[in-house]
């Protein structure tokens, strides 16, 4: 598959947006502006950008605690995301969800989930709705390597396969579930082989190659809709930052982190590829400046927006 230049630049822009969004969050955190912790996906931008840009707006995603990239990829407004993290009324969840629970139904994001594997069974239910409503859309379920040892992962895959549900399971294997290395946690051949064991076509891809992710998701989406079978992708990637803000990185070496930053960084690699194919540095700079401006404006607007008022929170629990 040869991508059009527009699509390539869109993929680059989205990865930049995700990275700069999270770097801005880090800076705000260090200035003491944010209450609570957060889980950054810096280094993993290719899987979020590649997967989400392969979907239509009407396709749904479910996301994880490390979900800022998924949310942006599916079209969320960075202002409303910053506002959410800052506890503002304009935030996606009016300050009730925070970093870990952003949902953006208008763009087909059923929400980030703080429970590891929590969204797998939800994605199966959403796919069942699509099947019952006879819609030509899929649900893309993001989860991490940590999720594949939860029982709900297995119950969800089994049912999706039995019922031929239009769901694409996408495991972002960043190789650590908090401190637990996935090769110490996952028995058997590979994470992808677990999908196969439920009769679901499963592949392992380079999750830091944004075009590989985009193409795999595009192809699988088409196949899900034509064959009525779920699919499974294991995208191998790596997170540079700790699990959350309290992580001291005692479980891995700085050499390992540096290797991924230097040799495997998804943005750096894609810039190299684009330049090689004739995209000018000026063009990329223009895109990056646009993203920087969007982030600056969004942060400012969020900081200027009103705090979420203290209402009757007990009543807010019920519809």
């Amino acid at each position, binding site marked *: 598959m040869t991508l059009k230049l527009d699509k390539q630049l869109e993929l680059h822009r989205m990865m930049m947006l995700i990275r700069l969004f999270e770097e801005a969050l880090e800076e705000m955190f260090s200035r003491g502006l944010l209450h609570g912790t957060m889980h950054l996906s810096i280094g993993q931008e290719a899987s979020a950008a590649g997967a989400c840009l392969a979907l239509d707006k009407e396709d749904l995603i479910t996301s994880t605690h490390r979900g800022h990239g998924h949310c942006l990829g599916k079209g969320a407004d960075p202002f409303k995301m910053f506002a959410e993290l800052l506890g503002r009324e304009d935030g996606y969840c009016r300050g009730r969800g925070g970093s870990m629970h952003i*949902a953006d139904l208008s763009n087909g994001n059923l929400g980030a989930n703080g429970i590891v594997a*929590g969204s797998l*069974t939800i994605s199966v239910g959403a796919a069942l709705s699509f099947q019952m409503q006879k819609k030509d859309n899929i649900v893309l379920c993001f989860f991490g390597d940590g999720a594949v040892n939860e029982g709900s992962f297995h119950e*969800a895959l089994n049912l999706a396969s039995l*019922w031929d549900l239009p769901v694409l399971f996408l495991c972002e294997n960043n190789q650590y579930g908090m401190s637990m290395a996935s090769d110490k946690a996952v028995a058997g051949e590979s994470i992808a082989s677990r999908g196969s064991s439920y009769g679901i076509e499963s592949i392992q891809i380079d999750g830091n190659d944004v075009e590989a992710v985009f193409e795999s998701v595009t192809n699988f989406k088409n196949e899900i809709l034509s064959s009525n079978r779920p699919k499974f992708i294991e995208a191998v990637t790596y997170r540079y930052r700790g699990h959350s803000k309290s992580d001291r990185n005692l479980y891995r070496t700085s050499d390992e982190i540096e290797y991924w930053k230097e040799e495997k960084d998804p943005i750096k690699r894609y810039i190299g590829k684009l330049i090689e194919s004739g995209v000018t540095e000026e063009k990329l700079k223009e895109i990056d400046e646009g993203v920087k401006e969007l982030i600056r404006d969004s942060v400012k607007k969020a900081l200027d927006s009103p705090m979420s008022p203290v209402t009757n929170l007990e009543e807010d*629990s019920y519809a």
Partner: protein
Amino acid sequence: MPELTAGQSINKALSLILEKNQTAFLAGEDIGIYGGAFGVTEGLLEEFGSERIKDTPISEDVIAGLAVGASMTGSRPIVEMQFSDFIVNAMDPIVNQAAKLHFMYGGAVNVPIVIRGASGAGTGAAAQHSQSLESWFCHVPGLKVVTPSNAQNAYDLLLSSFVDPNPVIFMEHKLIYKVKENVTLNPIPKDSSYLGNASVAQEGTDLTVVSYSNMVNVVKEAVAMKELQNYSIEIVDLQTVSPIDFETIKNSLIKTKKLLVCQEAPSNSSVGTTVVSEVVESDLFNVLETAPKLVSGLHSPMPSAKHLESTVIPQKEDILNAIQDML
């Protein structure tokens, strides 16, 4: 007016819901050709087909989780936990997902699901098939918890639970599956305002017994015993145990000035202790003529043998003794 057990009246309610609402579907273990372990879904597969009566593998986690995902995307799932004890395998989708999403996402989504299950003891099913776990769910903001006591209110409460835009845990005591009564087959209500209302099952002036689920029937038997023929006892059937209708309890206590609460579940952190604490924390404390009393199941797993099981569950004689102590 047909004479039905609660299982049969719930079947009628499910059938009406499926007929009137094309987005509604059922999912659960053995609910199809088997008709449900207690026969509650009998005939529905034939009537509505396998697209809408969905037999699942034995996977309670995904049964509850798929209900959450389906309800967020325009479907109206009603799912069955074959024995409500098995709901323990589905705590994450219920407690961390269904109950939280409306609040956590700032009101952007609703999770209108009904999770039904057969609860309670008295059938010799022993410790893992006899529990009354309703209090667990009362502790979780975002859930409603409904506990019918007879065929009529099981029918009406199920329709209202379906109409409600929130996740509802619907606990069907196994013993109410065995009792027949005349049931008025009301239409589906426009709103769910019937939830959260207690009913005065019997009027009286000397003492109020607050109860719920099948224990209401045991209380009725106790109150009918000849030892109490000269007394006038009021029985309040909570019907919904989260939220609890304290208004009805209050109105009753202003009249009777004595409170006894009866439940099958153990007392620790239970519906009964909530009722008592709410009453004694309020102005009603000054109205009460005696200390409130709580008759509960023992803090013990349910034994299998009949004579041991009936030791754990409050019997009508235990309730009679408590009432006599208070009068």
